[in-house]
């Protein structure tokens, strides 16, 4: 607070590091989910034929956990590239909507910044960012906050998938002890941050219901786009009736 800044760009730069630390702090609890899942993915990948270098290459370049678990499950030598690409698209098609939801908040940024930050837009990064934008009316997208969450989660994910691949299955079957519940718990908390009253309830319930149904009926990851689409159609009706 020692110096005075009159222009808004410089004051925004001053906010970078405090916001960065705030982002790191916000994302720390998520490591409870990231660390065991990272170790699990790494050890499974090596068992499936990934080499030690290929594990962090996958998790670092792709950085989308759901599609990485699917890829490990479908992995073969040589890998079926078209199948992997198709399943990756199916699981990650939700990013299209996520990017669209974030787009209006990015107008003040440079193009290269936007293309860089979108590279790291996983579910958790995206949801924490949107929740932060909505907690204070008029709050602008903060590069520092986004970077803080991203650096913390990205480094953790890439390094722990590598450690998991290197060390093999050191944790044993953690799911026996309920650690896998950390994943839906994170998502439920993210949903809580997006809750804006009963208007959300119907589309969300329809999305969940259809996704559960499709999960039972169809193999693969169709339940994600199917549920989402049903939820969107419902929200069209809900929003029309207000």
């Amino acid at each position, binding site marked *: 607070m020692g110096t005075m800044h009159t222009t808004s760009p410089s004051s925004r730069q001053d906010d970078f590091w405090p916001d960065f630390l705030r982002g790191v702090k916000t994302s720390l*609890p998520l490591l409870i989910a990231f660390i065991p899942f990272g170790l699990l993915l790494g050890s499974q990948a090596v068992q499936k034929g990934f080499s030690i270098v290929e594990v962090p290459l996958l998790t670092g370049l792709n950085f989308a956990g759901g599609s990485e678990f699917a890829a490990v499950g479908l992995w073969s030598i040589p890998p079926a*590239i078209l199948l992997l*690409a198709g399943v990756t698209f199916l699981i990650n098609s939700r990013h*299209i909507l996520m*990017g669209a939801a974030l*787009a209006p908040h990015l107008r003040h940024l440079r193009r290269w910044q936007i293309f860089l930050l979108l590279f790291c837009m996983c579910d958790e990064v995206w949801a924490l960012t949107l929740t932060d934008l909505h907690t204070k009316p008029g709050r602008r997208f903060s590069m520092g906050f986004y970077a803080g969450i991203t650096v913390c989660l990205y480094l953790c994910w890439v390094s722990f998938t590598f450690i998991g691949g290197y060390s093999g299955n050191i944790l044993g079957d953690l799911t026996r002890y309920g650690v896998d519940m950390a994943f839906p718990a994170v998502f439920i908390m993210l949903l809580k941050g997006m809750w804006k009253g009963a208007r959300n309830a119907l589309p969300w319930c329809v999305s969940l219901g259809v996704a559960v149904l499709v999960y039972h009926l169809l193999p693969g990851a169709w339940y994600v786009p199917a549920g989402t689409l049903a939820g969107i159609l419902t929200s069209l009706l*809900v929003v029309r009736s207000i």
Partner: protein
Amino acid sequence: MTLHIPALLAILTMALVTYLTRISGYLLLAGRHLSPRMKAIMDIVPGCVLVAVIAPNFATGHPADLLGLAATLLAATRFSLLPTMLCGVITTGVLRAVLG
């Protein structure tokens, strides 16, 4: 410490597909003006996505997992992230040990 070319190609293809999904939503909407109705819908959509991703957890037939999920939901209404996760993990772990 080896890198196989087919594996590398598969990983690069996946990375490219994922990156395209990440930028295309932005590219579609960048610079476009959203109507209030569209904005209201875009507020609801993110939750639809997240809830669909965790649908398999709701689709399970194991009583211990369903009860653990219920405990997580209940905890989420009262606590912040860290206690909620601990609540969910511990409850699920205990229930699995008890109910098998």
